[in-house]
């Protein structure tokens, strides 16, 4: 069978007339070194109907840093809590550069003490166990992002659960980006902070560069890449690494296979206006894991705005309401306590702040919001999105009950089987040992 696959190279984009191996339309690929698969017809000539493939090369919170964000200073980490009770002179002494190793060691000691007090359980699994000082949050009213609910809320309406919207630097009001308010005074989430500035961005973006996480996007049925009133859009996870060059820039035109887990297949529709893709809102669920964490993006009412450049690259933003639990697990959960020492927050304080500033999806019974608005910036390079054969597709959810200390109902997804996280995206080895508190205790002794 010969498949018709047409590619536009004039734009430098990775474009297929039909999907590049769509599970619905193509035969399974059975390639080997000795027996190549049958020829795929390709062309350099523009065609009317095209699919644009992209691989995310940068994906990180669209944080706007201003000097007015944190007038009280940055948020406390465990290292700060460990010295809070000391005389001011002693605190100043420990904060001097030459004494910071002691300052950090005191933080690690506090982290260990807390875990010992709870039989080795990660404090992030029991954030109510400690009443830490409230998280210092962003006090300015400027933030990047978009108006998700069509309202410029001052925090007094029911739907916003008390969270006041931001104003964008370009003057747009009603900006919903409360996750920025939570993370904006945590030093590791800022680039300008003295102690751990840029750390979280480097971890997250590094996970893309290291091949730990790959996100693909496919824009199908594109009749005109400048203006098209209807396109189909897919956003997928992949287990294959996006190539990067030595300057940490994504390299285009890689063929990358979509994951077989349909939980991480997301479909929506959209339109292209003046070269900008605008999707209809959809619930986005993607694999994410940095340094082995079994994390996920679970962002409701996701909207993507993407400027499709002529060279095939794209840049834009992704906004929506991050499910509160997943926002906590994804961005802050710290199994062994090290992040809470070195990266400027404590799980109890963040947990409280997330609930305080949650501004979406109010629970019908309690009225409390269960999701928090967010805005992320993304860059993408052209890629060929390869779909696995339909018969290989599965649907599963990572069994993170032990890792996060939650119940099945907290993670279950209808129609998805439970799978032990392993390999990339699996939990660090310590998670296993924590399953048996006796083992942990004996280690401490």
């Amino acid at each position, binding site marked *: 069978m010969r498949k018709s696959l047409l590619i536009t190279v004039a734009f430098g984009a*990775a474009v297929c007339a039909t999907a590049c191996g769509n599970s619905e339309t193509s035969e399974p690929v059975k390639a080997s070194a000795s027996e190549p698969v049958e020829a795929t017809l390709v062309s350099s000539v523009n065609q009317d109907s095209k699919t644009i493939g992209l691989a995310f090369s940068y994906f990180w919170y669209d944080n706007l840093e201003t000097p007015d964000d944190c007038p009280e200073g940055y948020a406390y980490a465990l290292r700060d809590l460990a010295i809070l009770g000391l005389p001011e002179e002693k605190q100043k002494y420990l904060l001097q550069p030459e004494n910071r190793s002691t300052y950090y060691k005191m933080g690690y000691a506090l982290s260990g003490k807390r875990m010992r007090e709870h039989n080795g359980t990660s404090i992030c699994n029991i954030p109510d166990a400690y009443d830490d000082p409230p998280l210092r949050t962003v006090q300015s009213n400027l933030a990047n992002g978009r108006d998700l609910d069509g309202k410029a809320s001052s925090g007094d309406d029911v739907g916003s659960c008390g969270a006041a919207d931001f104003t964008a630097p370009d003057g747009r009001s009603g900006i919903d980006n409360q996750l920025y308010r939570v993370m904006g005074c945590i030093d590791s989430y800022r680039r300008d902070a003295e102690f751990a500035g840029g750390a979280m961005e480097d971890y997250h973006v590094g996970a893309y560069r290291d091949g730990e996480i790959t996100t693909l996007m496919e824009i199908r049925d594109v009749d005109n890449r400048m203006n098209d009133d209807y396109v189909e859009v897919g956003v997928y996870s992949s287990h294959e690494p996006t190539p990067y060059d030595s300057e940490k820039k994504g390299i285009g035109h890689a063929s990358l296979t979509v994951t077989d887990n349909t939980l991480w297949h997301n479909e929506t529709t959209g339109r292209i206006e003046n070269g900008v893709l605008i999707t209809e809102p959809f619930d986005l669920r993607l694999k994410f894991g940095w340094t082995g964490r079994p994390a996920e993006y679970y962002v409701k009412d996701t909207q993507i705005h993407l400027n499709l450049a002529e060279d095939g690259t794209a840049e834009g933003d992704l906004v929506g309401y991050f499910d509160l639990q997943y926002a906590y697990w994804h961005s802050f959960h710290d199994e062994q306590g090290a992040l809470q020492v070195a990266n400027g927050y404590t799980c109890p304080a963040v947990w409280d702040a997330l609930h305080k500033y949650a501004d979406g999806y109010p629970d019908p019974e309690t009225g409390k919001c269960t999701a928090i608005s967010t805005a992320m910036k993304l860059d993408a390079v052209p890629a060929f999105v390869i779909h696995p054969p339909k018969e290989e597709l599965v649907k599963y959810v990572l069994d993170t009950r032990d890792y996060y200390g939650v119940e099945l109902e907290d993670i279950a997804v209808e129609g998805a089987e439970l799978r032990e996280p392993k390999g990339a995206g699996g939990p660090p080895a310590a998670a296993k040992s924590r399953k048996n508190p006796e083992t942990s205790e004996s280690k401490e002794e």
Partner: protein
Amino acid sequence: MSVIRNSILAGVAVAAIGAGIYFVPGLLNGQSGPKVTGPPPPPQMRRMTESQYRNSVADIFSPEIKVVGRFEPDIRVDGLAAVGASEASISGNGYEQYYAMAGRIAEQVVSDENWAKYMPCDVPAPATYDAACAEQIISEYGEKIFRRDMKDVTLAEWLQISELAMEKLGNFHAATGLVLEGMLSSPEFLFIMDTVTEGEDGSLELTGHAKAARISYFLWNTAPDEELLRAASAGELDTKDGLEAQVDRMLNSEHVRTGMNAFFEDFLHLDAFATLEKDKLIYPAFNQRVSEDGREQVLRFLDYHLLDKAGPYTDIFTAKETFVTRPLGMIYEVPVRAVEGWEKVEFTEDDPRGGLLSHIAFSALHAHPGRSSATLRGIAVRELLLCQSVAPAPAAVNFTVVQDTSNPEFKTARARLTQHRTDDACASCHEFIDPIGLAMENFDGVGRLRYEENGAVIDVSGAFDGYEFDNVDGLEETLADHPATTSCLVEKMQKYATGRKPQASDIQWINRLEKKFSRSDEKIIPLLREIALSDEFFAVSAPQVPVPDVNQQEAATQTREKKS
């Protein structure tokens, strides 16, 4: 696209006049000049190439035997390493490497875990010496390693070595290992030597085993297999029917791909992939995998069109089907569904890609690390594909304009080279080579397709040897039509098969090969068959310059005496 054929030879003549170019097509194909004949060439000894060594070891013992070591670099003479092999020697350092490799190979073969797998017999205890077993091993492996009949003197010599080794080592397996090490480090293994018999009239003739070696290294690029050695021993290679039977058997074997790959590696200078480097900042998608796959890609491409489809040789210029891996897919900017392995792609007729010149084995191999090169590509077409020679660049040439790809005044290679040609010292040669290379400017320094350079549309039209073309497709059609293209292949194949430059006695043979190649629709297998069955392929005569019968020991003694 338009391809206008004028008088090719007239065009060539015009191009050659005043260009300082040595242009030789037709010299050997009998198109002009009187018929020249001469005595056949003398017997040869050709140093085995790395691939021949590796293939031989794999076929004599097993592909599982690891060959680890550095080989003497190939020497390219007359455009082919196969010809250089006849002029190559082995340096002292090189021999140390071969000797060490021989030891490592022998060690693996006689190891306890492998002995039963490779050896036809064994002894009841290691300390026992079994002369019959030793003879059997030496006979069996000796014939394969030396490519000669082991009867008589040779067998006795190696048996004696085996006995001496047993005496010293006290272990039959170790002694056998030493014998194999000696065989594998012997010049008779490392060089493919012609052994001859002398007729009553003084004429020389290759022995059956020497014929077997010629056929086998030509068609399969490896040592003769058991069946060929049997036929050699039985004298079947001295008969027309016997020779035909063996050649046809070998041509029908999958091993002929190995032989053809070796030829095209040599023909297209694919050994240059070993040192191919590209600027990582300019071409981030180009890496070691791309380089390795690019080499294999063109061989798969040639296999497919010339062997699988049995198409005419000239099809490789106009073909639209080739093979890609995922790393190559990033260069060609095509989707590749298979995570590992190869996938066949077919470019549409209006796509400039698909033919030989669009492969990175051509476009990237004949380019600079950070930019394309119309000049290098033009030279490559002239020299590799048309067997024409281009004079080297004169000294003290100013390349500044050509190298500065960011000069806003000269946005494209054509503009830069046009400016460069204003220097009279450069003009004549560049007029000969650049039009060909400029037609390939749609491929950047790593072979990616492009239509613009620095924002300017690339003009890929041109003319050479009386043909005009609009783009690389037109150029490739020109090459497919150009008589020098097929005559060059025949000439190179003949040189590759014989391992020597064509001699006066070869002219009629090459002329005949060209005619038969043309009559067989320029298909590769009939050409291989014609060469392998030619009397000229095996013809040898005594050296025209008498070689003195020198006693090496006496000579060495005399030299020492003189020095003292």
